């Protein structure tokens, strides 16, 4: 048992050492091997060094810019939007699952509704994904060495920012469905359309800078999706916090005359895209001048 515990500690020490810079990783592991330190003590020693290295990085302003300028505001918005759109997706999915009949496809109205439901879900997923990808890319640009800490904080904000709030959409016709649609589906949404794109954005930035053609096409896509989904984003904040918006002169919610006092939040979602464009342009000009 003691040998197993020591092996587990050594394995964890090796894993922890991957958080160090490559040149330091070998030196530290070599020092510990030479001194005969292994098992859990080696693991604690390496983690101690990792913690000190991370703490030193946070003395710089860049990780704080990433945390306060990107992770907190965008994480909160992504949390509300993903939960809200997961709920509306759950409504659509549960209706079709319960009421599906293949014969309904012959009716144009049913096909129309099916298409619009699919389009709504696809646009929601696409908007969340592009916002999250630009967020991950920006985090890796601003502070490469603290990106994993900021990504973990972002994950916590995304999954926890809506604690203590609810939405109006809850399906309760049976316990399994209620739990799946009310708890599991929002988490799947967040994992699939927020955190995976964030990780992909980080990975893309670490591979290198985006090509100019992709840059402008990507920016156009982000802006288009943001314009299309900004009313839904605002509603996710209003309804998601248990507040109630104004119905406008026609006294009907969800129509074009509803006031939109929260329209600037869409600009917050565009901030990573603006940063990527602004930092990519001087590099491009330098390459053209060279």
């Amino acid at each position: 048992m003691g040998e197993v515990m020591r092996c587990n500690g050594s394995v964890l020490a090796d894993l922890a050492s991957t958080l160090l810079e490559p040149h330091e990783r070998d030196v530290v592991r070599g020092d510990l091997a030479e001194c005969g330190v292994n098992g859990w003590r080696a693991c604690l020693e390496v983690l101690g060094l990792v913690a000190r290295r991370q703490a030193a990085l946070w003395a710089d302003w860049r990780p704080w810019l990433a945390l306060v300028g990107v992770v907190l505001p965008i994480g909160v918005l992504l949390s509300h939007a993903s939960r809200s759109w997961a709920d509306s997706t759950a409504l659509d999915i549960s209706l079709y699952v319960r009421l599906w009949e293949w014969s309904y496809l012959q009716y144009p109205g049913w096909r129309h509704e099916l298409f619009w439901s699919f389009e709504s879900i696809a646009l929601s997923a696409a908007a969340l994904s592009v916002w999250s990808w630009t967020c991950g890319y920006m985090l890796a640009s601003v502070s490469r060495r603290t990106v994993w800490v900021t990504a973990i904080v972002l994950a916590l904000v995304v999954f926890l920012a809506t604690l203590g709030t609810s939405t109006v959409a809850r399906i309760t016709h049976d316990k399994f469905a209620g739990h799946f649609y009310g708890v599991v589906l929002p988490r799947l949404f967040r994992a699939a359309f927020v955190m995976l794109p964030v990780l992909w954005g980080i990975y893309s930035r670490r591979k290198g800078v985006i090509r100019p053609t992709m840059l402008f096409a990507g920016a156009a896509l982000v802006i288009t999706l943001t314009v299309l989904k900004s009313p839904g984003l605002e509603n996710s904040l209003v309804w998601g916090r248990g507040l109630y918006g104004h119905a406008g002169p026609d006294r009907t919610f969800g129509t074009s005359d509803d006031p939109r006092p929260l329209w600037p939040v869409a600009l917050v979602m565009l901030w990573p895209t603006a940063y990527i464009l602004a930092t990519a342009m001087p590099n491009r000009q330098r390459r053209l001048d060279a």
Partner: protein
Amino acid sequence: MLLGEFEYLMLTAAARLGDEAYGAAIRQEIEDATGTPCSIGALYTTLDRLENKGLIKTWMGDPTPERGGRPKRMVRVTPTGVDAATSFYNAVRRVSRGVVWAKS
């Protein structure tokens, strides 16, 4: 510039070890002298701080079998480091004149 106590211990250990001064050896010297464990984290962050101040120079040494074929981080005290350690030592001697633990 007055050193910290751990910085002085590291400079002294490195100076004593001479050409054999590297991470693990310095750590062993400090542990032998103080009787307390010396963490890898404190060791390497202090090495970086001393190098940033210009008190030591470090470079990667050759790997050895007892280190699993991994390289060492070699250390050499610079003349500036010698001056800083000398100042610290003289300051400790001057301030310790006449105190009871300095008489033994």
